[in-house]
């Protein structure tokens, strides 16, 4: 039994292959780190100089966006407000509708209804934003125009409607998962104390699922802020300060998409700078999301 010689046998070729492949795995894992680094670098590299030349304060708080004119301004406040208003509106409508629908699907709906609605929600989640935008343009915009007797249906209101529709699947699915993760003991304890099912849902289960639901809301905010195509088609896109719920307006994302095609020089830099603003905003949102998930052990996606 020459175990000594057998046990000490090493295959050089296997060793090399193993080394290469295992390191390949590690390299691939670092691709996302590399990607974030490169993206951050290039976005800032292309956008910061323009922002500095325009003057950061003038850029962010200036209300005059008229880059095509000789001494036009590069203020993006109208677009910042546009994005904020649209997103806020989408959340105000989308979160309650989504949350209550989630309650329906996770706690109340009979099996046959769930079986129809669940796939419907998943389908809604998969529809491309251009299709939503197109729907918005062909259905929502004329409706708003007629119903509110406006010269033009494209407005903040139309955009809010479409955006709330688009964030529904996100809010619903995450809320359902969060509500379903609430320990049954809480539910049983509440019911045993004499509370009704409804009271239990709203006074015990939802508060318990709070951080999960909140992370769904944050993700919805992220989606609404980042939405481009759908909003462009229904917003009207005038670059002036939004004057009311039914005024034409423009978002940060819309600004980039519309003008990038023909922008040059400082104008182009300004659009990249808009990208920087968006990027920073999303990073902040991400950090908030991480802080919440860490605190509440919430459920993601």
């Amino acid at each position: 039994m020459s175990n000594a010689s057998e046990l000490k046998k090493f295959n050089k070729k296997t060793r090399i292959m193993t080394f290469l492949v295992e390191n390949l795995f590690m390299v691939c894992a670092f691709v996302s780190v590399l990607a974030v680094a490169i993206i951050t670098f290039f976005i800032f590299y292309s956008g910061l100089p323009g922002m500095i030349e325009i003057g950061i304060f003038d850029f962010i708080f200036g209300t005059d966006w008229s880059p095509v004119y000789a001494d036009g301004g590069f203020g993006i406040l109208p677009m910042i407000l546009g994005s904020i208003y649209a997103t806020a509106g989408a959340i105000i409508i989308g979160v309650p509708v989504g949350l209550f629908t989630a309650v329906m699907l996770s706690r109340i709906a009979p099996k046959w209804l769930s079986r129809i609605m669940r796939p419907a929600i998943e389908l809604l989640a998969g529809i491309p934003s251009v299709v939503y935008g197109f729907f918005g343009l062909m259905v929502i915009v004329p409706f708003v125009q007629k119903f509110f007797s406006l010269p033009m249906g494209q407005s903040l209101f139309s955009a809010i409607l479409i955006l709330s529709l688009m964030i529904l699947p996100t809010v619903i699915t995450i809320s359902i998962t969060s509500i379903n993760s609430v320990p049954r003991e809480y539910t049983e304890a509440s019911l045993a104390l004499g509370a009704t099912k409804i009271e239990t849902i709203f006074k015990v289960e939802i508060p318990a699922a709070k951080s999960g639901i909140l992370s769904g809301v944050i993700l919805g905010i992220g989606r609404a802020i980042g939405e481009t195509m759908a909003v462009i088609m229904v917003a009207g896109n005038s670059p002036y300060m939004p004057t009311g719920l039914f005024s034409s307006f423009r978002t940060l994302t819309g600004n980039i998409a519309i003008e990038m095609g023909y922008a040059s020089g400082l104008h182009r830099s300004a659009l990249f700078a808009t990208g920087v603003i968006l990027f920073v905003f999303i990073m902040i949102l991400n950090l908030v999301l991480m802080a919440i998930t860490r605190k509440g052990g919430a459920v993601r996606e």
Partner: protein
Amino acid sequence: MNRKNKSYDLIMKALIWIFSAVTLVFFLLVTGFIIIKGAPQISWSFLTDIYKVTADKHGILPMMVNTVYLILITLLISVPVGIFAAIYLVEYAKPGKIVSVIRFTTETLAGIPSIVYGLFGLIFFVSFLKLDWSILSGALTLSIMVLPVIIRTTEESLKTVPREYKEGSLALGATRLRTIFKIILPNAISGILAAVILSIGRIVGETAALLFTSGIVPKIAQSIFNSGRTMSLHLYLLVTEGISTDEAYGTAFVLLVIVIVINRLSAYLAGRLRKRLQGGSAE
């Protein structure tokens, strides 16, 4: 006390039903509208003609081919990278700083808006790497976009493979690598497929990121270095350039059908994955 309870209950219940109805109505509106207005636009010529307005040809064939082309190249790049990254995270990485950083950046990538990806693709792939407006630029940009989904889903799938299989394999003298490729990966296949299907859905619907990277040429791209318009972009251009509402409906309809097919496929795969976890039957 009873009366207050009762009215609270009634109001909340009403709200639940009303809001759920709103969701359902929204869903029916969107899908119904596209189907009703779009289906009549579908004809053999619409689906198989090339797109050349001067020759009165308004087919979406080039856009469909370009979309498939883009999907293939994107998957070719992102799937291997994503799977290998997931393998590293599940099988090799020790919990700690490194893994946290990787996870943070992966989640960050998932949150970046597509228009920002489009900008990045424009500066980096199109300009800096001189790849010009091309399928390749678009594919590289989209690869980064879908990477988080692939990594996350593959990771979860890898974790469902029972530890006993791994131990059994190693105890027989198989190396870690062999165990990964012969035992773990084959058992994570349906999860990986789900990730791929999800990504395809994302790629098909993507517009903002492609507007400035893969370009808007409505011809079949001859190679990955050519520009080529995809279905979603086509819809966007038809609408914003006010060309044809009918064609827009038709294109939207085709897109909707694709989404439904993808949706059903992934639901089917999810069902198979669940069955495997519960039943444990080999094939």
